[in-house]
């Protein structure tokens, strides 16, 4: 669509600009301020330059948390994206089943994140939870609050349970936009199911999949609440991801300087990915228009 150039449109954008500026720029300036100063109390503060950044970047615990975070986020994407596509392909195209599946699939997305943690906390316990009970019945020694591996897998399964529906709904939106004529043409040509998927369905899902993959990347990269409730980052540090680590140093130890420096680095990583995301989506939009 061609748009008219009109700088008065800024007046329509001003309210958004102000409200987001208040809740984004002022806090961000505060963080920048903290990251270069050593603060003892409001009157006593010293400029320390890049000391906090050097300290944080050399911190072993941060490196470990970052590696855990990357492994976790990659696992989340590798499981949820194929599973989400597969489930989306099984969804009915019309009839009462559509609404019913939509509501049931979206249900986990609407549960408060700490309740998601509580649900799995209960479900996974060997003494009172069905899941933990059944796994132990099968002869596997499973205890997510003692065994780091079990805790990690539980957090991963919880995330799959919680967020795969997002990919399903996105892919389904893409699939719905395919006209029936395409399928009929494929049938006449005698195309295999795989060919239909590869050459008709996958290209139509491409743009929504980009959104889905990057939303899942962002949100799993800043996951906090669910593991906090389920395992509290433990046992040990097995499920301490970046946000958990940040909250520990900022609120737990009240080390404002390092916490602020770490916040900025964290934010920059996400900003970089966000920029890639934005560019990819916008270019995909342009290609479609042509």
């Amino acid at each position: 669509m061609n748009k008219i150039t009109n700088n008065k449109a800024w007046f329509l954008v001003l309210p958004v600009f102000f409200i987001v500026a208040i809740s984004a720029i002022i806090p961000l300036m505060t963080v920048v301020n903290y990251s270069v100063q050593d603060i003892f109390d409001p009157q006593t503060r010293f400029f320390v330059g890049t000391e906090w950044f050097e300290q944080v970047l050399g911190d072993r615990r941060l490196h470990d948390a970052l590696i855990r975070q990357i492994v976790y986020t990659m696992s989340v994407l590798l499981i949820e994206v194929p599973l989400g596509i597969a489930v989306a392909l099984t969804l009915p195209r019309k009839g009462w089943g559509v609404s019913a599946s939509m509501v049931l699939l979206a249900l986990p997305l609407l549960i408060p994140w700490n309740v998601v943690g509580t649900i799995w906390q209960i479900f996974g316990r060997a003494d009172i939870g069905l899941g933990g009970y059944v796994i132990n019945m099968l002869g596997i020694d499973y205890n997510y609050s003692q065994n780091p591996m079990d805790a990690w897998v539980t957090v991963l399964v919880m995330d799959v349970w919680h967020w795969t529906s997002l990919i399903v709904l996105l892919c389904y939106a893409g699939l719905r936009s395919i006209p029936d004529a395409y399928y009929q043409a494929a049938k006449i040509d005698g195309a295999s199911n795989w060919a239909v998927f590869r050459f008709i369905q996958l290209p139509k899902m491409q743009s929504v999949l980009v959104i889905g993959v990057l939303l899942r990347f962002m949100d799993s990269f800043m996951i906090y609440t669910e593991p906090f409730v389920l395992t509290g980052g433990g046992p040990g540090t097995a499920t301490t991801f970046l946000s958990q680590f940040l909250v520990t140093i900022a609120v737990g130890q009240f080390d404002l300087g390092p916490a602020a420096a770490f916040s900025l680095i964290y934010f920059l990583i996400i900003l970089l990915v966000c920029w890639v995301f934005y560019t990819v989506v916008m270019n995909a939009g342009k290609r479609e228009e042509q």
Partner: protein
Amino acid sequence: MRFQKRHIALILYILFLLLPIYWLFNMSIKTNSEILGAMTLFPDNPTLANYATILTDPAWYSGYINSMIYVAINVVISLAVALPAAYAFSRFNFVGDKHLFFWLLTNRMAPPAVFLLPFFQLYSSVGLFDTHIAVALAHCLFNVPLAVWILEGFMSGIPKEIDETAYVDGYSFPRFFGTIFIPLIRSGIGVTAFFCFMFSWVELLLARTLTSVDAKPIVATMTRTVSASGLDWGVLAAAGVLTIVPGALVIWFVRNYIAKGFAMGRV
């Protein structure tokens, strides 16, 4: 609807989704002795005592009211500021529009943990700490960009000729926007309101940090009860079930648009 083999896979997946939720519900209607005593798929003596505890204790039910209030304020603010902005983004080129849009998006992507302390100090210093409006404003950080994004997607689907015809017919901008344009994107507004509701309702970290007593949300009440009394699983499960109910209710109203909404109106 013809039954096909692939539907078995779908039903299995939905069972996987529902089983943990069923287990929560199952526990919420059991007594604590049955929860800890035996593994039962169905409660022997269903009881509503856990729900009664929550609905009669102000410490519990005020949490639900507080959550509802700040979620409602947040939805109203987000929609009010996002509607004109989304219109501007979908219809006009203006200086810095692409940069502004990108900057808005970065706020959707910012980890709330980064903003935790500054928010706490900002709202404390202006005397808004522990008020509903503080949480509602803090949630605007990610809900306003999201609302602009979804609405922009829906608005771009409305042909521009409608605007032009209305202006030729002598409509002023506010009258056109209120009487013609907003009714046209009803479903988009509904979906946007739903998403703002959803993300404000499920958020814990900011809501918990910015409140202590008067505006304490239900999600915070739940985590504090876990650490305080620890073992009252029945009441905890009942509280959990009650937090799922509002989401399940609103989802019914947007069921036909939800897939499009998750695609940010961009399909």
